[in-house]
C-alpha cells in the first residue's frame, strides 16, 4: 500500500473501534428492540412470529402502561423546572468571591461524588416513615412510600439531588464566563441584580441552559434507577415510570415483546421532545 492510500484510510481505521462499539452496544440492540416490538417473543427470547403493530395496540390499551405514561410526563413536568430553578439559584448565590463561597461550591458539587444507588438507599432510610430522620425533624407522620403524592414528591426531590452536582458545575462555570467588564458596566449604569440577570447573564448562559434543559428532559423521561431502589413503582403504581415498566416487563416477567414495545415508544417520545427543544435553540439561543 502506498503512503497516499494509507493516509486516506487512516481516519477510518481510527474511527473503526468506536464505530464497532457503537454498533455492538447501540445500533444493533436498537434495531433488535424495534424488530422485537413487532414480533411475538417467547420466554426464551426467541422471535416466533411477526405481528406488525399488534403489540403497540395492546400496549396502549394496557392500564399499567397508561399509568406509566402519565407518571413519566408528570415527573418530567415537576422535575425539569424544579431542577433548573434550584441549580440556577444555587449557582447565582455561589457566584461571588470569598473563602466561604468556594466552600459552598464544594458542598453543592458533593452529591456527584456519591454513587446513585447508595444515595438512594440513604434517602430510603431518611424518609422511612417510622424510624427515618425526616419525619422526626419535620415532626410529621407523612407516609412517604404509601401516599402517592408524597412518593412522587420524594422522587422529584431525589432526582434534583442526583442532578444538582453536575448542573451546578455547568451553570456556575457559565456564569463565571460572563465578561466582568459587562457586569461592571451594568453596575455603573445602575441596573439592579434582577435586571443584570435577565438582560445580561441569562442570554449569555443560554447555550449552557439549553444543554441542561435537554439533558434534564432526557433524564426525566428515562428515569428508572431511583424508582427501582426508592419506591419500586409504588404505591399503587403512582411512581411507575415508562422505563421502570419496561424493566418489569422485560427483565422481571420475560415479556420481551412488550418490553421492547415500551422501549421503542419511550425512544420515539423522547426523540420528539428533543427535536422540539432543539428547534427552540435555533430561535432563542445565541452563541457568543
Amino acid at each position, binding site marked *: 500500500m502506498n503512503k497516499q492510500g*494509507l493516509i486516506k484510510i*487512516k481516519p477510518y481505521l481510527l474511527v473503526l473501534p468506536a464505530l464497532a462499539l457503537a454498533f455492538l452496544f447501540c445500533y444493533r440492540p436498537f434495531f433488535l428492540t424495534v424488530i422485537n416490538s413487532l414480533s*411475538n*417473543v*417467547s*420466554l*426464551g*427470547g426467541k422471535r*416466533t412470529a411477526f405481528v406488525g403493530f399488534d403489540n403497540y395496540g*395492546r400496549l396502549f390499551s*394496557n*392500564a*399499567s402502561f397508561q*399509568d406509566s405514561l402519565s407518571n413519566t410526563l408528570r415527573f418530567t413536568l415537576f422535575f425539569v423546572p424544579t431542577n433548573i430553578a434550584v441549580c440556577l439559584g444555587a449557582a447565582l448565590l455561589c457566584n461571588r468571591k470569598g473563602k466561604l463561597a468556594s466552600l459552598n461550591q464544594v458542598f453543592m458539587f458533593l452529591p456527584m461524588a456519591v454513587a446513585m444507588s447508595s444515595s438512594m438507599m440513604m434517602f430510603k432510610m431518611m424518609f*422511612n*416513615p*417510622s*424510624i427515618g430522620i425526616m419525619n422526626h425533624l419535620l415532626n410529621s*407522620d407523612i*407516609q412517604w*412510600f*404509601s401516599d402517592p403524592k408524597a412518593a412522587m414528591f420524594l422522587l422529584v426531590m431525589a432526582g434534583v439531588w442526583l442532578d444538582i452536582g453536575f448542573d451546578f458545575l455547568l451553570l456556575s462555570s457559565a456564569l463565571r464566563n460572563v465578561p466582568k467588564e459587562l457586569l461592571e458596566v451594568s453596575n455603573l449604569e445602575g441596573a439592579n441584580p434582577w435586571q443584570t440577570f435577565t438582560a445580561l447573564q441569562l442570554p449569555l448562559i443560554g447555550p449552557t441552559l439549553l444543554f441542561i434543559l435537554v439533558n434534564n428532559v432526557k433524564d426525566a423521561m428515562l428515569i428508572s434507577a431511583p424508582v427501582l431502589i426508592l419506591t419500586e*413503582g*409504588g*404505591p*399503587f*403504581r403512582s411512581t*411507575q415510570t415508562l422505563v421502570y415498566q419496561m424493566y*418489569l*416487563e422485560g*427483565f*422481571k*416477567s*420475560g*415479556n*420481551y*415483546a*412488550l418490553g421492547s414495545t415500551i422501549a421503542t415508544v419511550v425512544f420515539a417520545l423522547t426523540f420528539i421532545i428533543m427535536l422540539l427543544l432543539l428547534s427552540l435553540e435555533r430561535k432563542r439561543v445565541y452563541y457568543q
Partner: protein
Amino acid sequence: MKKLSIVLCLIALLAVPSLFAQAKGEVQDQKITTITWWHSNSGLLGKAADAMVSEFNTGIGKELNIQVESVYQGKSSDVLTKTKAIFQSGSNSELPDLVQLDASGVLDIRDNQYLISMEDLAKKDAYDLNQILEAAKLSVTYKDSMIAMPFNSSTILLYYNKTALEEAGISTPPRTLDELAETALKLKKTDEKGKTIRYGFANVPTTYELIVWLGHQNGVTYITDQENGHTGIPTKVLFAENGTMETFLTKWKKLYATGSLENLTSDVNGAFASGRVAMMVGSTSNLTTVHQMIGDRFEMGVAAFPMVDEQANGGVNVGGGALYALDNGSNNSDKAWEFVKFATSKEQQLAWHIATGYFPVNRDTYTMDEFNTHLEANPLYGVAIRQLQASNPKLQGLWIPSAYQVYYAFQTGILKMLVEDKTPKETTVSLEKEINGYLEDFLRMNQ
C-alpha cells in the same frame, strides 16, 4: 505512522492479559468441592443462614470435603432476576449450585433444562421424603414431582397489639373480617383535632393475602385455573365466576367504611411496632423481627389469619421459599444435596425456626423435646403451626406469569375501589379483564 504502530502495539499488549484472566480462578484445590448458594436472607435471617453454613462447613462438610459458600444476592426478586439473566445468556457455568427462591420464581424455573429435580436427588440418596411436611412438599410440587426442597416455609398470620386490645376491653382477637372491622373500629384513636393517631388495621391486599382470602372460601378455591398454576400454565382467572372476589371485596369495603383501615403499602411492620397501627397481617417469618422491633413498647399477640366469612374454612397456604438445585456443569449436585439434607434436618430446622420464626419443614422436628420446650416458652410460634395443621394442604400459592403486574393490579384495583367508591362488582370485572390480559399475552408469546 510510528505513533500509530506504537499505539496498536500497546493495545495488543493490554488485550492479551485479559485472555488469561478468563482462564484464571478455575485452578482450585481438587479435593475440596465448593458449593455456591445464592440466598436472600438479610438481617436476623442472614445471621441464621450464616450460622447454618458455618456449622456445615466446620462439621459434616469438613468430613465430606464440601465447603458451602453462601452469597447474599439481595431480595428474593433480585435473586430471581439474576438467575434468570444467566438462564437467558445460556452460560450455565455461572449458575450457583443452589438457589433459594420464593413462589414468584417457580414459573420461570420449573421447566428450565438446568433445574435438577430435588426429588431425583433424594431418590438417588434413598432419602425418605415423607419426613417433609405434606403442605410444604405440595407447595413445590409440579407435575407430581417435588422440584425443590422447602426450606424457609411460612404462613400468613394476624399480628395484634395485645395491650391496645385489652385497653379497649376486647379479650379475643378477631376471627373473621366482620369481627376484624368491629375490633379495628374500637381500636382506632383520634386526637382533639380529629386526626387519626392510631389505625385499627393496615393493609392493601395483594397476591400474598388474596391467595388465602380468595382461596380459603368454601373449602378451597383457586385464583386461576390449573390449580393456581400448579398443574400447568394458567389461562384465566376464576375469582369472578366463582364469586370469591366479590364476597371478599364486599367485606373489605365494609372494613374501610369504618375509617379504621389505613391503606399502607410499605413499612407496615414499622407502623405496627411503633403503635400507630394496632393490627396487621404478615408472614410468620417476621415474628422474631417484629418482636425485636417492638421491644417493651407493648405486648404483641398473634392469631390465625382472619377468615372472609364462616364458610371460609380452607385455612392458609405454605408460603416462603425453597432451595433449587441447578446444573452448572460441575456435577456437584450430589454434594449440594448433602447441604440441602443438612439444612432441612430436624436439628437445623429447629435452630432456623427459633432464630427466624419460619416453621420447621421436617416432621421430626415437631417431636423433639427442645422444640416443645421452645414452644412452651414462646407460645406465639405455636399459633402458626396449629393454623397450618388445621389447613387444607390443597390450598396452594399462585404460580402465574407477569407476577409483578398481577401484584400491582390487585393493589391498584382495590385502592381504586376504596377511594373512588367503585362497587365490588366493577372492581372484580376490571381486575378479571386486566389479569386475563396478562395471561393471554403470555400464552400468545409462548404458544
